[in-house]
């Protein structure tokens, strides 16, 4: 497994775990009240995500320092571009769906959480696709 593929796995697992933890604590009603604990929770989840990803990358870099130092080659760049393109469509559709909830009476807090969810799903799709392309060869 290449360094970039291991990196994709770290991103996929960390964002999946942290976002499941966060979104389970979001009150999914259309008009949730302002809640500083939610904002604090988001902050700590982002912090946890950064720590997990940094530690994970340090570990895989120590395991294969030569691979870690090698810059991305053309195939890896193309895989990233293909995966990002697909994720973009997920972001756009998800964000539009989130915004459309305003017509159902959703408040800004619900919409923000829904847009964040769209972003997270897009990221999961991106890293899952990267892994798929790495496994398949291209």
């Amino acid at each position, binding site marked *: 497994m*290449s360094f*970039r*593929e291991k990196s994709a796995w770290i991103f996929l697992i960390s964002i999946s775990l942290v976002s499941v933890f966060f979104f389970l604590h979001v009150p999914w009603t259309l008009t949730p009240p302002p809640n500083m604990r939610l904002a604090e929770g988001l902050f700590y989840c982002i912090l946890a995500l950064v720590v997990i990803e940094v530690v994970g990358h340090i570990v895989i870099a120590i395991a294969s320092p030569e*691979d870690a130092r*090698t810059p991305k*080659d*053309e*195939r*890896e760049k193309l895989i990233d571009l293909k995966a990002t393109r697909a994720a973009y469509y997920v972001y756009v559709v998800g964000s539009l769906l989130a915004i459309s909830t305003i017509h159902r009476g959703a408040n800004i807090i619900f919409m923000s959480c829904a847009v964040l969810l769209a972003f997270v799903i897009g990221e999961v799709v991106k890293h899952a696709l990267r892994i798929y392309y*790495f496994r*398949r*060869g*291209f």
Partner: protein
Amino acid sequence: MAKLPISNQIRRLRFEADEMTQQQLAKLVGVTRQTVNAIELGKYSPSLEVAFRIAHVFGMPLEEVFRYQADLKKE
């Protein structure tokens, strides 16, 4: 996945070049070992630059290393 219309002789040429490993070839060309493997297996078509670099490593013209499927059908 559709088979790419370009075949190559990289595996044979590596063997003939003192059993060069994929890693060694990758380092000489400036790509990863996984990319060399993907090229050999016909899963990935390299750019023109990388194709020329590979041919240069083996000291052979490009057409001796890579062949377009249409050429194979004529023979």
